[in-house]
């Protein structure tokens, strides 16, 4: 045992090593990504690790490893579980032999996400146990024990941390890395693994019959616990439990829910002892619904009474306010502190030298009246440049684009999608667009890496998660095999060529694909690529402001004149944009 200062995701990854896992897969997604990144970088325990092409693929690979008797982990963000929902639902029927844990990280406040869905709903839907840690230490401990729980019931276990667990740090007591390894052996059993109707009806019954024992076991394990201290109670879960405990009066009872399904008898026995119960949880009112179902005379406060907000993440202040509102005065009175008004915003922005910026610039210049569906990645920041009209979920740029085009809308459709997102769920959309005769341009923003989530490799990178060289997929060949007749690859730092390529695409019909290819500027810098920075010749600068609209963070202004700061990555695109020819590589005229 040793106490270390660890990120929640580091604690979770370490727990997997302690639990003797032999297989891990995932698709990157904030706030889950570090778990697989840590497992693939560590050298303490050899295991099979892969970044898969999407969450469904990751899920099925890990499920198969668990069917071979290994302990397996699969990681994703909450919306990734939508992609993996198909195997999830039926894996509850087939069950597993080796321990199988699905980490699906929720993101209250949608810090880095497109919605605020609640993974606990999926657990309920699939009838699988779900663990919901309330601290970094508990995240470690629960993950360490989750594999044994999975094996005890022969079911996948869902592990659901939130952003404030994954990306919080604390002193964590960790154990020894496990040294036991299992040998994979697939023991065929068609009644379990071939879900034809005759088999699946029996499997469904068996799943339902497991439920009471699961509920009871989760209480025995101490995941759901309570202390009776008065006639009023707070029932809470996740990181909100920490906020509650910091300000809870001594005479108020407390129940902390760390696992689902909640045993109804246990919950009723607690609720019945109180006149008032306040339920404080993030995202969906999962616990509140359970409490309302068992409450007979107790008055219940929560989201449904407007006491606790439905949306966003909870904070110590919102929790204290909810308690006050429900007649439970918190022990600490937080001050009302408002931020200074009208401080200029500093949103995240595409990096200086990012290849996406010039691609968006050229796209908008050639297709002035275009409709621009886009996708999930750093390039969603193209919104600031007016280059993103839609974003809904992974892979939906091409499908939304073809849908707009085929709906009869007459403006040209040009969609943008990153390489990793294209490989994730973009390909079926492209195939569909060609097959059904859509009129559109697809731009693949090919920076050779999954950048936004922390530069994870993908089949386009040339290396696997474990560092083994691989043959990079040919995006060009892939598009051609989908039936795209016109595919052009272009260097987005070469603005004249880029503009020319967009213009030629505009003249053609059918599905046209432009692959804008240039390594991510961050990975390029890390691999030692240095380009000389550019500078503005102040005598030539007319202050016209054309470069202002380009939105590069390395371009600043003193008065009307542009200057280039030390953020410059040397891509040189601004030199091509400047109508006065005032920008050149430093040291050149």
């Amino acid at each position: 045992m040793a106490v270390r200062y660890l990120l929640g995701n580091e604690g979770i990854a370490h727990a997997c090593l302690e639990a003797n896992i032999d297989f891990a897969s995932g698709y990157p997604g904030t706030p889950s990504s570090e778990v697989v990144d840590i497992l693939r970088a560590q050298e303490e325990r050899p295991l099979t690790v892969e970044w898969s092409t999407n969450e469904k693929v990751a899920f099925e690979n890990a499920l198969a490893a668990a069917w071979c008797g290994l302990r397996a982990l699969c990681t994703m963000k909450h919306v990734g579980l939508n992609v993996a929902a198909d195997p999830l639902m039926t894996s509850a029927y087939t069950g597993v032999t080796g321990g199988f844990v699905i980490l699906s990280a929720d993101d209250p406040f949608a810090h880095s996400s497109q919605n605020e869905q609640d993974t606990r709903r999926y657990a309920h839907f699939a009838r699988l146990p779900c663990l919901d840690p309330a601290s970094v230490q508990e995240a470690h401990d629960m993950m360490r024990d989750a594999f044994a729980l999975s094996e005890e019931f022969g079911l996948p276990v869902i592990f659901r941390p939130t952003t404030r667990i994954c990306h919080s740090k604390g002193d964590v007591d960790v154990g020894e890395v496990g040294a036991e390894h299992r040998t994979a052996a697939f023991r065929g059993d068609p009644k379990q693994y071939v879900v034809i109707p005759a088999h699946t009806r029996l499997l469904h019954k068996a799943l339902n019959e497991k439920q009471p024992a699961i509920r009871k076991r989760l209480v025995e394990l101490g995941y759901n616990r309570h202390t009776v201290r008065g006639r009023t109670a707070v029932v809470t879960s996740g990181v909100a439990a920490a906020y509650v405990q910091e300000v809870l009066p001594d005479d108020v009872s407390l129940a902390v829910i760390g696992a689902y399904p909640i045993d109804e008898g246990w919950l009723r026995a607690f609720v019945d002892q109180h006149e008032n119960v306040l339920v404080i949880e993030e995202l969906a009112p999962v616990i509140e619904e359970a409490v309302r179902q068992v409450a007979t005379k107790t008055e219940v406060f929560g989201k449904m009474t407007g006491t606790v907000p439905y949306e966003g993440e909870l904070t110590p202040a919102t929790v204290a306010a909810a308690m006050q509102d429900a007649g439970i005065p918190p022990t600490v009175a937080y001050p009302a502190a408002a931020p200074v008004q009208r401080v200029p915003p500093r949103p995240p922005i595409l990096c200086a030298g990012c290849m996406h910026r010039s691609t968006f610039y050229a796209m908008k210049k050639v297709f002035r009246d275009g409709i621009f569906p886009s996708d999930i990645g750093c390039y969603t920041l193209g919104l600031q440049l007016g280059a993103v009209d839609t974003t809904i979920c992974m892979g939906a740029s091409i499908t939304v684009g073809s849908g707009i085009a085929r709906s009869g809308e007459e403006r040209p459709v040009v969609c943008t999608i990153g390489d990793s997102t294209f490989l994730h769920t973009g390909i079926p959309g492209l195939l569909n667009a060609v097959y059904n005769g859509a009129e559109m341009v697809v731009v693949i923003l090919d920076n050779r890496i999954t950048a936004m989530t922390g530069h994870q490799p993908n089949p386009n990178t040339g290396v696997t998660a474990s560092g083994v060289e691989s043959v990079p997929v040919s995006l060009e060949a892939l598009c051609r095999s989908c039936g795209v007749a016109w595919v052009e690859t272009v260097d987005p730092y070469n603005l004249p060529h880029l503009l020319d390529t967009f213009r030629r695409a505009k003249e053609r019909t059918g599905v046209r694909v432009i692959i804008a290819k240039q390594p991510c500027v961050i990975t390029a810098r890390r691999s030692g690529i240095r380009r000389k920075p550019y500078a503005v010749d102040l005598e030539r600068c007319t202050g016209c402001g054309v470069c202002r609209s380009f939105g590069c963070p390395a371009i600043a202004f003193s008065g009307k004149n542009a200057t280039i700061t030390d953020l410059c990555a040397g891509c040189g695109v601004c030199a091509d944009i400047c109508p006065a020819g005032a920008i050149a590589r430093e040291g050149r005229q």
Partner: protein
Amino acid sequence: MKPSFDILIVGIGGQGTVLASNVLGEACIIEHRSVRSAETHGMAQRGGSVESHIRIDGKFGSLITPGTADLLIAFDLLEALRYRHYLPAGGRLVVNRHLVVPTSVYQQGLAVPDEESILAALSDLDVTCIDAAELAEEAGSSLSQNIVMLGAASGDIPLRPETLEEAVRRCVPPKTVEVNAKAFRLGRAAAGERGAPAP
């Protein structure tokens, strides 16, 4: 008596706020004290405004509540202004004399903020302003500005300076240990000269 000492470190993605908070966390481990912290990850790191919450002796959640921070360390003047409401009236601010104007200001045609007016808007706080770039250059690398700032704030942090310097050594890349240790000492001395209050 407040059970934890709450520090908010703010800056711009890429300035090393996470490393600075890691040093504080590691120092807590060295002194066998509990600690909780929260960081910005993901897309917000791309040049956006970022914050790290560190609660020394913290046992509950990692988020600091506005109006209750014991110390604000800002790597950029504008970020100090953005997060100053985390401090109580007259609270303690250690800020880098450095201002990156957000690109959004130019794109949206907003009034360009300047050093003097920001410092004026912060003047009711207990402020120490540090030229971290100059001291980092003196230490041997402009990349050590985050550690300069930590050194400058160290007199206000209830952790021993020896512990903090040891934590710096453990947290920074091996090749940069000496540069960063020097950066820490230079920052600490600079704040001392400006009359930082004793912890």
